[in-house]
């Protein structure tokens, strides 16, 4: 793909400068990516801890551990932390940050200081939210529905909303940075249709970040104003309409789901060709489908409101549009599958995660078709069916892909290989644990178990116990990679510049990369996922 392979330089981005300040004041996109990685890992385990407590509590129908107040705070904080402090920044701010400049042959993002600022803003938002949590928590659910959040809740709603409001600016900064970078910083010869799908998907993601996040910010600001000043904006007692809040909230929060899943698709689109040694099947269709998801994804939010009191005709339109947005996702799944056919398929850990993603995302996406069908949605919305559906997308999809991506690029990031056997084992554990946790929840939802219940009728207990058992397995599957990846950073074998024989500019430089990625700006002459070069290399060998 690139015209030359760089010579190994003496120092890399990790050793270039030393000391804690060199990290805290860095403008290197790779270091900022690692700062984000450390932060979101912390948030992930905090949010995961809440999830474990919830699952343990639900072992018995009356609730095993807490009163309902505590349970309500647990699911709220689990949602807030996982959505805004793990999933939204997860892949874009870590892998995206690290890889986008390298994949397009740039020395850095367009606005390195803005990039660093986004991390500080993110941390400030997280800190404010954690303070709200420590001071007593929030019990509104991550959705902040009015009038409960503005009038009736007695918890720290404003603190939590403020934290999310602040963190939103970090999303906007990241989005602006990515869009400007992808437009203006590409290496000579790197035309749009030579870009890796990773870049296309992150471009689409950034579009959503930039256009949706401000609406969340203003909506939360309105909730804050209504709550602090006790004036009418959404409060029906003062002439407001709580459904308007839901419209504005989901105008952000539905596209936000695509902020989580598009980067996951980006990662999988890199892994599958490399580990099948086949060019991406239907490259153009996959590239365009990312953009289609980003655009059409803005038109479907009303499917969260089918029973909420929106008009039936509006519901009809939103149902139709929701089916449209399923098409580009389907196209991607078909193309990934077709890429594998007749390939040379390796069973390395990243590929195992990618295959797991494929299965779980397919289930998650297809259950979305159930929820888009108006007559069925009436029954299963606001039940565990919905809980299972979005966990299949966000955990089965986004987190699996994130882990796959971390394993795939770990040799590039750290220069070291992780222990393959252990990694395959934990990929398997995550897959099995995940399904055991969440598949029973589809059944629970169909049987009518409403979500956000601290206690439940006896007949649901068996499925809840299964789900809790799965969660404990899943927990092990998440802790294992944390341990061995850190271990590998210190003790792993040297990986070399390109252990997977992957294409893509990021593999043309040393591992870990030098501080400015490339000593000479690469010139691109061919398409992405071009394995023809490997043939010559093999013949020579």
């Amino acid at each position, binding site marked *: 793909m690139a015209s030359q392979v760089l010579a190994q330089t003496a120092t890399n981005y990790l050793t270039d400068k030393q000391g804690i300040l060199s990290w805290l004041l860095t403008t290197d996109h790779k270091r900022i990516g690692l700062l984000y990685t450390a932060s979101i890992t912390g948030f992930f385990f905090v949010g995961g801890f809440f999830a474990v407590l919830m699952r343990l509590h639900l072992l018995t129908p009356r609730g095993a551990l807490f009163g309902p107040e505590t349970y309500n705070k647990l699911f709220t904080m689990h949602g807030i932390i996982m959505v805004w402090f793990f999933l939204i920044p997860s892949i874009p701010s870590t892998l995206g940050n690290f890889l986008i400049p390298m994949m397009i042959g740039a020395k850095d993002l367009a606005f390195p200081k803005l990039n660093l600022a986004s991390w500080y803003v993110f941390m400030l938002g997280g800190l404010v939210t954690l303070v709200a949590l420590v001071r007593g928590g929030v019990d509104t659910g991550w959705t902040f529905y009015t009038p409960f959040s503005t009038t009736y809740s007695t918890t720290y709603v404003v603190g939590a909303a403020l934290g999310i409001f602040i963190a939103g600016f970090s999303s906007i900064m990241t989005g602006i940075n990515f869009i400007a970078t992808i*437009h203006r910083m590409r290496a000579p010869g790197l035309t749009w249709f030579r870009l890796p799908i990773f870049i296309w998907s992150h471009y689409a993601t950034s579009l959503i970040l930039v*256009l949706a996040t401000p609406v969340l910010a203003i909506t939360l600001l309105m909730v804050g104003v209504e709550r602090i000043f006790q004036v009418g904006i959404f409060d029906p007692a003062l002439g407001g309409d709580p459904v308007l809040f839901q419209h504005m909230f989901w105008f952000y929060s539905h596209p936000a789901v695509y902020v989580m899943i598009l980067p996951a698709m980006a990662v999988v689109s890199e892994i599958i060709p490399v580990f099948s040694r086949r060019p991406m099947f239907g490259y153009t269709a996959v590239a365009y489908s990312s953009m289609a998801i980003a655009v059409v994804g803005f038109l479907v939010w009303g499917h969260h409101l089918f029973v909420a009191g929106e*008009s039936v005709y509006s519901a009809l339109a939103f149902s139709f549009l929701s089916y449209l947005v399923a098409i580009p996702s389907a196209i991607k799944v078909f193309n990934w599958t077709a890429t594998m056919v007749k390939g040379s398929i390796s069973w390395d850990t990243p590929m195992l995660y990618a295959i797991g993603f494929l299965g779980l995302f397919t289930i998650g996406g297809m259950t979305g078709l159930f929820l888009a069908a108006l007559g069925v949605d009436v029954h299963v919305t606001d039940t565990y069916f919905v809980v299972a559906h979005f966990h299949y997308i966000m955990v089965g999809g986004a987190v699996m892909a994130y882990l796959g991506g971390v394993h795939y690029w770990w040799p590039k990031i750290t220069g070291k290989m992780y222990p393959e056997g252990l990694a395959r084992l934990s990929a398997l554990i995550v897959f099995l644990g995940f399904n055991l946790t969440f598949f029973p929840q589809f059944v629970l939802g169909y049987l009518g178990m409403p979500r956000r219940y601290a206690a439940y009728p006896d007949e649901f207990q068996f499925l809840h116990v299964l789900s809790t058992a799965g969660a404990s397995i899943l927990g092990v599957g998440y802790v294992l990679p944390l341990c061995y990846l850190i271990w590998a950073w210190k003790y792993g074998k040297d990986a070399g510049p390109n252990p997977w024989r992957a294409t893509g500019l990021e593999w043309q430089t040393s591992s870990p990369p030098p501080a400015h990625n490339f000593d000479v700006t690469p010139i691109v002459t061919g398409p992405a996922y071009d394995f023809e070069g490997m043939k010559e290399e093999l013949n020579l060998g």
Partner: protein
Amino acid sequence: MAEPVISTRSYVFTYLALLALTLITTLLGYLPLGPFSMVVAIAIAAVQACLIAGFFMQGLYEAALVRVVAAAGVVWFLIMATLILTDYITRGWLPFPGK
């Protein structure tokens, strides 16, 4: 040293046009146009916005991409407004409370 893309004359004309439109929209506000008074006011404001964005902000002289970005902001706002208003306008079309 590159030649400035917009002459001072154009800025002055733009400024005068903006002042004239402000005067017109204020005077039209006194006419009892009913629901159209809002339409007229917003239409004139939109013209003013285009003048400011096109000349003062040099939007007309930037790369096409910049104009696409500006248009995207407006289009996405219209998406939000249209689909939310669709709900409010169609409420009550079925003769049952809350439909």
